[in-house]
């Protein structure tokens, strides 16, 4: 086992850095908690019958008046904080991961094609990317969300909220993928294996996805991690602004927005526990992203 780890430089580096290991454990724990929320969480926060106003505003268990039934306390409705946070993290991660996947498929596809075909197609894709890069992601996401609100009929708004949010975030993050994929593809285009494939008359799609893509995966993996953190932050920010998910199906950002109402009163846990949770999640993903960058880019080590 140890010999295996030592032989793989990435894994070996991993065991040498306590910060990276802690980050990995935190990220993994939160993800497991989020994925298995329906089985782990004490109650279902979406089920109105599962909580009662009588339990409202109970502090965490270690504080005075804390109850063992609610380890991290309850909000003003009597909802268990642990359950709300686990379900909230679940929504945040679902949106974050799907947005990141959509953005990477779109961005890598366009970037590969731009790098492979070059010429006018490349110019058009990159001009669009440049324009979007001038607009910060949050502005793009807000705009797309606003347009969706204008186009969709009101009765569909609620059902499609998660989808609209995911798409808005994905469309504001694809540029990074496209630029990186394009730059890496340019490098690969001069290599002999690509030229050989072209000479054989293989289909461009096959060359792009079967031959080139596996060779440029490294830098893309780094961007995927960093953009996952960005996507989660974007979702949290939009929900905090009241543009994202509504209060009856809260994500972490929505929970923080609700907690803001208790900033001036003594109920600190309603605000700070979801906030800490969000920061822990984003910081650990960012640390992992930094680590991956070092692994794939030995020059920076």
């Amino acid at each position, binding site marked *: 086992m140890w010999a295996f780890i030592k032989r793989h430089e990435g894994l070996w580096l991993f065991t040498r850095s306590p910060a990276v290991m802690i980050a990995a454990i935190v990220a993994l724990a939160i993800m497991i908690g989020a994925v298995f929320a329906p089985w782990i969480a004490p109650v279902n926060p979406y089920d109105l019958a599962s909580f009662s106003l009588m339990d409202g505003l109970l502090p965490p268990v270690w504080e005075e008046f804390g109850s063992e039934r609610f380890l991290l306390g309850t909000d003003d409705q009597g909802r268990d904080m642990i359950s709300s946070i686990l379900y909230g993290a679940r929504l945040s991660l679902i949106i974050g991961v799907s947005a990141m996947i959509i953005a990477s498929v779109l961005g890598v596809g366009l970037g590969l094609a731009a790098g492979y075909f070059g010429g006018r197609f490349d110019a058009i894709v990159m001009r669009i990317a440049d324009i979007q890069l001038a607009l910060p992601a*949050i502005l793009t996401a807000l705009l797309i969300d606003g*347009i969706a*609100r204008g186009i969709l009929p009101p009765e569909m708004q609620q059902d499609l909220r998660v989808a609209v949010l995911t798409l808005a975030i994905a469309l504001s993050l694809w540029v990074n993928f496209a630029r990186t994929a394009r730059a890496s593809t340019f490098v690969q285009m001069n290599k002999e294996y690509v030229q050989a494939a072209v000479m054989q008359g293989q289909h461009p799609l096959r060359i792009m996805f079967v031959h080139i893509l596996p060779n440029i995966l490294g830098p893309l993996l780094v961007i995927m991690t960093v953009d996952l953190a960005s996507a989660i932050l974007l979702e*949290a920010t939009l929900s*905090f602004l009241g543009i994202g998910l509504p209060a009856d199906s809260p994500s972490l950002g929505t929970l923080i927005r609700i907690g803001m109402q208790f900033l001036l009163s003594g109920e600190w846990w309603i605000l700070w526990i979801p*906030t800490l949770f969000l920061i822990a999640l*984003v*910081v650990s993903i960012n640390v992992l992203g930094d680590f991956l960058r070092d692994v794939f880019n030995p020059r920076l080590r």
Partner: protein
Amino acid sequence: MVYFIAKRLVQSLFVMLAVAFLAFSLFRFVGDPITQMTGVETSVEDQERLRDELGLNDPFAYQFARFTGDMLQGDFGFSYRTRQPVAEMIATRIPATLELGVVALLISLFVGIPAGVYTALRPRGAATQAILMMTLVGVSIPTFVIGIILIFFFGVQLGWLPTFGRGGTVNLGGWDTSFLTVDGWRAIILPAITLGVYQLTLTMRLVRAEMMDVMQSDYIRFATARGVPMGRLYFKHALANTMVPVITIIGLQFGGVIAFSIVTESVFQWPGMGLLFLESIRFVDIPVMGVYLVVIAFFFVLVNLIVDLLYVAIDPRLRIRDVS
């Protein structure tokens, strides 16, 4: 020189046209303006007549030309929600956002540049490590959380500073400024820090990287050998040569400052353009959304134009190249 400026002006004009087109498409294709303006009891014939009167049946290019012409004359249309002229709504909000943005940028420069120089000159110092660690945390914490933390400590726990609104403002010829009252200054501190933190880390990292680069160069070594005093060496010779990329970033950061001011304004209930934009999204107030875009793009283009001109002022080499 003249050619350079003219080229940049034409480019800027194209960017503005593109943004105006985007705003126009928003206005024209997202939702139907007629249903927004009329009630349910308006008959179909009346709706059609209104459509004709407003010129919504005219050719697309003609409509766009008219839209651009109106904008140039300062006619930005009416808000769907408040029925007020959009130009007026935005104009009253501009001072708040610009003052917030300027103070945030100043904070990021006056803290970021010295910190960048220091961390570049003493790369192994304990203070450097601490500063670098803090910037890493600063990048990972979302803007709105930084705002909440500041509000909690300085507003709620210590009670030193106000946590919402602009405080007292003084009207200077239509421009409401909060720079002339103590109250206004107290109110702007927390939002400006919130907005400035992210820009600060960017500025610092950039100055640090550039400074470390420049310190390796031959002319700095030569100046050291000649015995140029350290202060003069660092700030006159070294720092001056890092200024071109730093100014570029300031220009680019301006877009970020404006965008993140949406978040900051929401946290601090700061009555600026960002808050107006958020409301317009929530109520699908397309005219306000469109005009906000055009106004932001205008500031963006303007700042970048100024940045380009500053290059020439700062870097004499660019002037020589231009002559040749």
